[in-house]
């Protein structure tokens, strides 16, 4: 009798897991929807979101600083054997300490982050983390989950209003990915930094410095969008032990000089704005 009971139980269990397995082969949602969102639509969506961001913040066109960011990007991409050209970096003037990924491999970095960083390696850590989100397709998954595929199609087609585009930009710049995705991006960052001979300790230090601030000011946007900072910093230290690397500097320049380029650019822009305003005033007077 006991044998009969066990056999029948085994048949029920096998049929349950069998049905589950077979039904699991069918694409219902998730990745399927994300893939459905064609590359072209993703590009248009990214353009619209970027327009929304640059409508309120100036895009910085400082060649020296851009060259530094590019050299960081190339170092990470080469280490991970990624196509460097497909990742585009947009440096935006804002005192917020923030960086985030957009669809179509676009990355936005605020000047506030570069001001706050102690060295190029810390910036590399943040960039590697954001490239991790891009490579794991977290950006589109997050947008599909929070906004819905149909709404994304209408934003990309230009049918949605400015408010919706602004809201989408806000979701990407000021809300966190879920914890699983953050940890995946952290793991990617540690791996790519180690492969690029950049010490992942710098990213951990950056996290610790942010976490040490008891009262998080509004400008520390990257902390509010990246919760559990202390735990993750500790996890990075743990993970980095799995890799061997020979730490090499990214740039020869002191980081302070890069920050000076930024502030010099800001002053130059301010002078240019004043000159343009003066010229406008003269033109109006005439």
């Amino acid at each position, binding site marked *: 009798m*006991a044998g*009969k009971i066990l056999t029948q139980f085994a048949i029920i269990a096998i049929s349950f897991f069998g*049905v589950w397995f077979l*039904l*699991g082969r*069918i694409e*219902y949602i*998730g990745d399927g929807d994300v893939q459905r969102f064609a590359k072209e639509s993703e590009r248009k969506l990214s353009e619209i979101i970027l327009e929304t961001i640059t409508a309120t913040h100036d895009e910085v066109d400082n060649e020296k600083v851009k060259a530094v960011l590019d050299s960081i990007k190339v170092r990470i991409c080469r280490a991970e054997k990624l196509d460097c050209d497909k990742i585009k970096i947009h440096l935006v003037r804002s005192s917020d300490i923030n960086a985030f990924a957009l669809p179509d491999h676009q990355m936005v970095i605020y000047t506030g982050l570069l001001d706050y960083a102690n060295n190029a390696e810390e910036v590399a850590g943040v960039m590697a983390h954001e490239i991790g989100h891009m490579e794991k397709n977290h950006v589109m998954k997050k947008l599909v989950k929070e906004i819905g595929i149909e709404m994304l199609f209408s934003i990309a087609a230009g049918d949605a209003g400015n408010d919706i585009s602004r809201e989408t930009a806000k979701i990407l710049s000021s809300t966190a990915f879920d*914890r699983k995705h953050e940890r995946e991006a952290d793991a990617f960052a540690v791996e790519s930094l180690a492969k690029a001979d950049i010490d992942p300790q710098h990213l951990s230090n950056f996290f610790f410095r942010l976490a040490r601030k008891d009262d998080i000011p509004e400008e520390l946007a990257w902390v509010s969008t990246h919760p559990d900072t202390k735990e993750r910093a500790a996890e990075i230290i743990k993970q980095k032990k799995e890799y061997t690397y020979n730490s090499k500097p990214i740039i020869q320049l002191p980081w302070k000089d890069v920050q000076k380029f930024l502030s010099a650019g800001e002053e130059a822009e301010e002078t240019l704005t004043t000159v343009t305003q003066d010229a406008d005033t003269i033109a109006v007077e005439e």
Partner: protein
Amino acid sequence: MAEVVSFAYHPDDYESEKASNSYLMSLIAVIAGLPLPIVNLLATGFFWLSNRKGTFFVRWHCMQALLSQLLVLVMNSAGFYWTLSIIFGDNTISNTYIAYIITIVIFNIAEFCMTIYAAVNTRKGKHVYFWFFGPLTDQICKS
């Protein structure tokens, strides 16, 4: 999955009604207790407790109704907590999750149909013997 077999004696009308009610109890509780998967088990459990000193036919069917609820309880609880982790936690809706929900819906419908079949037939005094749960009840419920 469920068949009518001969029983040691022919139950009277009162016994048939009680035995049938044990199945009906789980059906009503399923409707009342959704989406909490524990309610139908609790209802069947209380009914079994109140009838554990009843006749062999009544006890046997109360036990079979209770055991058949246990399996769907396990499946539904997993689905319930998985859903909660998606709503309040970090999990996301995936193909595996949807497949699981469809699977438990199929198994719940099968169990629901078996329960109705058992309720109708035990009311007529017939001895309904479920696949797997029948032999298991035989082991637990001794005359």
